[in-house]
Structure formats: structure tokens, C-alpha cells
């Protein structure tokens, strides 16, 4: 009888809930939102949702990662259906489809649009050569991926090519960030590790690359479940600075003794001029200063910005837990006033933009959110779903002692005493 109860609660947690993702085209030509297996793209040029065409019928299961390439010509998506799709952003046709052995957890595109890299749930990082892209070819081409490195048995939460193109940087759930030399000669294996950036005490979930005049060498910012944002030199792996972002945002309460007292950083994004990094924290958003999103329950699960326009796009959402929800909900908000020139005497205020003022207006919100307005109740259920999603994704499942013994009942070398 006890076993039944354990089964049910386990099943609830086992249902894989995926957080919503947002990505903005570098020149803000498009904004994409991925919720569950649904990929929604809004085109500013046409003022309406873009039609995606894919020979294989799109993604069949939750999408876990989406990115635009630096040039904006390509868009990649991948997730639990073990597929990585590369889309041409002019026609929104799926030009490449890559099969992965395991579920895909993160994606990156190299700066020169020649390589797509993805990581699977088991910690292996693969590379696909897409340098032979031919836009005359109308059919989706199936490509093979080659494994180049791995984090042993660790879910890779974030993958990136360094801006100078020399390294591939991978961050995992076991607090590590690995910087490995990458080049087209190393397509069969990226064996030379440049350094490790070690210092986080919880899963690392996001990376960003700020640019600074004073520091010519590579800067890397990482956000983690330990509620800190850290600054590193990725050539040497040395930790340059740590920001206790949870405390700064005034969110953590030192009197609390609960386990989840520390709000985790859920995503990072550099502003268009690279001078600041925005961090989405489990309850709010922080950009050097704190921007609270008043008036509704909003937990940004993913943030993105164009490199040309000083706006920050945020989304909150998750694929639904219960079968009753038909529309996958995502709430999109925009923050303006970023990337301002600091030499100006008056710095414009960073604030959340009202729905009416959002670029693209109502058609954009309609296309990306699934519906125009989202009432408070729906917001709350989405917020709960989001918390579950982040928890499942990033925190290792802890089994109770009875549950562990129950799972071991099949072993024949050690008898479990009843």
C-alpha cells in the first residue's frame, strides 16, 4: 500500500515539464517562443506570426533549447524528441534535421554559421558541420553529428562558442564550466581543455559574454542555482568576481531555514552593447539594479535580447502538467531602457513595457502567447508549473530511504531486510 503512494507521487514529479524559452533575432527581425513542443515565431516585417515549414512535421516533444546564430540567418531548436532542427530564417524552412541518441539539453551555433553544437542528457557534446548550406535545396537534409567531448554523466545545461571563436564552453549541472579549444581541425574530437571555471556551489544554468573596454581578454559571466552570478576570465579559468544576486535583489531572507531559500538564477543575457548582463532570478529580474515586475505573478524562465536594439525580452511559461490545459501558455514581457550610453547625464529608466507599447503590439502577443490576455489564475498555475519544471531540470532527484530500498528490490546480491 505504501508502495502505491510512492509510485504516484514519483509519477507526478517524473512528468517532464519544460520551461518556456524565448529567443530574439540579433537585429530584432523576429522573436521566437518555444513552449512544450510548440514553436511560435513572430515576424516584425510582416507584423504577424511566421509560418514554419518542416518536412518532418516539426518537433514532437518538448523543446529544450532555441538559439539564433550571431548573423541571424539561422535558427536552431532541439529537445526531448531527440532532434535538432536548423531553420533558415528567411523562409522559415527546416533545412537540417539531426538525430541525437539521447534527449537534447542545449544548443549553440558558431559565430561563422558553420557549426551547430548540441549536448545530450548524458553529457556528451556533438558537433554538426553545416558549412555546406545550400539554400537552393528545398528538402530537409538529414545530417550526422559527431561527439567531440563530454562531461561524464552530467547534464549539460548550457553550451556556447566563445565570441572569439576559439573555444567551446560547456556548463553542467554538477557546478562545472569547461572551456575547450575548438576549431575545424578538431571536428573529430575537442581534446584539449583550456581550463575549468570552478567556484559555483550549485548547478550552472546560464552563460553570457559581456564586453568591456578595459578587459580585452575573454570575459564570461555564469549564473547558477547557488544564487550567484560570477565573472570569469575564460582563458585562464580564474574567478574575477562574484555577485550574490539573490541578496542584492532583496529576495533572500537570512532568517529562512527552508531548502529553497536561495532563489536560483534561471537565465542570463547580455545587453546589446555588452556592458551589462541581465539575470533572471526565480522571482524577478535583475539588471545591475532590480526591475520588479509588478502587478502579476511573473517568473521569467528565459530572457533574450537583440544585439542591435536596447530591449530585453522575457518569457514565462511551461508545458502543462495536467492534461486539461489545451493551450500552452507563455507570457511575454519586455523591458526597455537598457544599454544606455553611460556618459549621458540622464540615464533612462529601465522599466517593464506595458502590453500596449510592446513592439509588434497585439499581433505579437497573440502569436507568441497563444492568447492575448492571461488572467491571474492561469498565471498562477503557469507559475507553479514553471517552478516544477526548473526544479526537475536542475536539481538532482533525492529519493527517500524507503524509495531507494524499493528501487533496489530487484538486486540479487544483497538481500534487503523486510
Amino acid at each position, binding site marked *: 500500500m505504501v508502495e502505491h503512494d510512492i509510485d504516484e507521487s514519483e509519477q507526478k514529479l517524473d512528468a517532464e515539464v519544460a520551461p518556456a524559452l524565448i529567443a530574439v533575432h540579433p537585429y530584432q527581425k523576429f522573436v521566437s517562443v518555444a513552449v512544450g513542443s510548440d514553436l511560435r515565431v513572430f515576424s516584425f516585417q510582416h507584423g504577424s506570426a511566421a509560418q514554419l515549414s518542416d518536412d518532418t512535421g516539426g518537433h514532437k516533444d518538448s523543446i529544450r533549447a532555441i538559439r539564433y546564430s550571431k548573423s541571424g540567418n539561422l535558427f536552431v531548436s532541439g529537445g526531448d524528441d531527440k532532434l535538432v532542427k536548423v531553420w533558415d530564417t528567411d523562409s522559415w524552412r527546416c533545412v537540417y534535421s539531426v538525430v541525437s541518441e539521447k534527449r537534447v539539453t542545449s544548443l549553440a551555433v558558431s559565430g561563422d554559421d558553420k557549426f551547430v553544437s548540441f549536448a545530450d542528457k548524458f553529457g*556528451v557534446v556533438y558537433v554538426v558541420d553545416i558549412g555546406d548550406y545550400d539554400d537552393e535545396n528545398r528538402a530537409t537534409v538529414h545530417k550526422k553529428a559527431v*561527439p567531440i*567531448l*563530454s562531461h*561524464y*554523466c*552530467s547534464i549539460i545545461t548550457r553550451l556556447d562558442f566563445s565570441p572569439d571563436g576559439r573555444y567551446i564552453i560547456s556548463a553542467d549541472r*554538477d*557546478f*562545472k564550466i*569547461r572551456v*575547450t*579549444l575548438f*576549431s575545424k*581541425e*578538431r571536428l573529430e*574530437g*575537442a*581534446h*584539449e*581543455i583550456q*581550463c*575549468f571555471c*570552478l*567556484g*559555483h*556551489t550549485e548547478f550552472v544554468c546560464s552563460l553570457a559574454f559581456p564586453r568591456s573596454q578595459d578587459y580585452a581578454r575573454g570575459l564570461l559571466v555564469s549564473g547558477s542555482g547557488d544564487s550567484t552570478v560570477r565573472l570569469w576570465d575564460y582563458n585562464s*579559468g580564474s574567478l574575477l568576481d562574484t555577485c550574490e544576486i539573490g541578496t542584492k535583489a532583496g529576495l533572500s531572507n537570512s532568517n529562512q531555514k527552508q531548502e529553497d531559500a536561495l532563489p536560483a538564477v534561471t537565465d542570463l543575457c547580455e545587453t546589446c552593447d555588452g556592458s551589462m548582463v541581465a539575470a533572471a532570478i526565480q522571482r524577478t529580474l535583475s539588471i545591475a539594479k532590480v526591475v520588479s515586475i509588478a502587478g502579476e505573478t511573473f517568473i521569467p524562465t528565459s530572457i533574450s535580447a537583440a544585439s542591435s536594439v536596447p530591449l530585453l525580452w522575457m518569457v514565462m511559461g511551461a508545458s502543462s502538467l495536467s492534461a486539461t490545459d489545451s493551450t500552452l501558455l507563455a507570457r511575454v514581457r519586455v523591458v526597455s531602457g537598457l544599454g544606455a550610453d553611460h556618459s549621458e547625464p540622464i540615464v533612462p529608466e529601465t522599466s517593464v513595457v506595458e502590453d500596449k507599447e510592446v513592439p509588434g503590439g497585439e499581433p505579437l502577443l497573440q502569436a507568441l502567447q497563444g492568447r492575448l490576455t492571461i488572467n491571474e489564475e492561469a498565471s498562477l498555475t503557469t507559475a507553479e508549473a514553471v517552478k516544477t519544471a526548473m526544479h526537475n531540470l536542475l536539481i*538532482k532527484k533525492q529519493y527517500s530511504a524507503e524509495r531507494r530500498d524499493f528501487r533496489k528490490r530487484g538486486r540479487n*546480491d*544483497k538481500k534487503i531486510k523486510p
Partner: protein
Amino acid sequence: MLEHDSFSNPTTHSKTTGLPRKRFYRARAHSNPLSDSHFLVPISPAHFENDCTAHFPKFFPNGSKKIEFADIGCGFGGLLISLATLFPDTLMIGMELRDKVTEYVKERILALRASSPGRYDNVSVVRTNSMKYIPNYFEKAQLTKMFFLFPDPHFKEKNHRRRVISPHLLDEYAYVLKVDGIIYTISDVEELGAWMKGCLDDHELFEPLTEEELAADPVVELLSTATEEGQKVARNEGQTFRAVYRRIASARPR
């Protein structure tokens, strides 16, 4: 007659030599390298340096030395004990996943330090999963020797990824090994020996030692004789398969 006492009131150490007795530290031969056991892992090599005061009290905190030898999966510590006296000025550490076995090695080292003062101060053991956390313990190019003696063969093909020598893990071992550092592997399972040799041959950062170099290295002999596994193989007159390679600099442009 004295043994009688130890049954009703067992002491874990032998009365005559002061060394711990294996029967009180029995453990399964296999431990799951994929599970995250609840042992403490240092956040970074700099943090581990602080722990080294407990491991090597005569050398830290004012020491300028760093650990140079690592025995991965050191088992009951046979190799480390032999190496400790062969290289008295070098710091070495064993890494082992099973906690009972790690306790045994700890006790053995403490007992040896007590019975032979001035010796065995340079060796210690830590309980950890070296397949996941090696970069947490050692800096880039810190080690000069790494040992993988009689690793778990994981015969089934689906378990091959649990083998301690694999193409991807060699990246990490190459990272912590200095250029010209040596990696020593040995197994009594022919298929595993061939696998390890194959992985090392294919890896661009390792090259095999020549016959002359092998003959000149005093450590090579210890691989098959110093450990309990090795002695068991010799008793059963089994064959061993050795692969000893040197870490080289990459030939690729940076």
C-alpha cells in the same frame, strides 16, 4: 586463543602490527560510478589545497609542494604504500569510491606513520568519484604520474561507458597531467587491456613509451606486484596487459 576475544569484542586492528584488518573493511567489489554519493567534493583545486593540511600534516600549510601522483581506484592501497618509500619527497594521493575501502587505507596509512615515523607522510587517500571530479582536485598540468590498476572491466557493451579509461575521460586526464607525465594502466582482462591501449593510441595527446623507457622505469615493475589484485593474478598464474603512455603536447595550432 587471543582471537577469541576479538570475536566477542572485535578490534578492527591487529594487536601485533597495529595495522587494520581487512575483514572488518569488507565491501562489494563494484561501486556505481554513475550515482552521486553524498561525499564532500572540493569546489576547486584551490579549496582542496586547504584540505591538504589534514592529509599531509607535515607538508602543509606552509608547503610549496603539490600532489604529483594519483592512484585512481587505489583499492586497499598496495601501490601507494610501495611508492611512498620509493619517492619519499613526492606527494601522492589515492582516490577510491568505496567508503569502507577508503577507511581501510586511511587507517593503514595512520598505522604505518605511527610505526615508522618519518615515512609515509607523503601519502594519503580521499573518497571520491574520480570520473566526475578530477578537475576539482588538481590544477592544469599538476600531476606527473597517474595510475589505473586493474580497473573494473564492465563487460557488457552497454556498460562500456562506465569504464574509467574512455576517449572522453582521457581529455580530463590529459588536462591534469603535465606534458611528459606518465599514465600507467594494467589489467588482467585481455579485452579491457586492448580497449585501454586502443583509447590511448587514438588520443592525440598520448604516445606510448618505448621498450627501453619501460625497462628503465622502476615503477613499471610495481604495477603487477605491488597491489593485492596483482598478487592475486600472479598466484593464479594469469596474464596481465599493460599500457604505459606519455602525455605529449598537442601538435595542432592553437
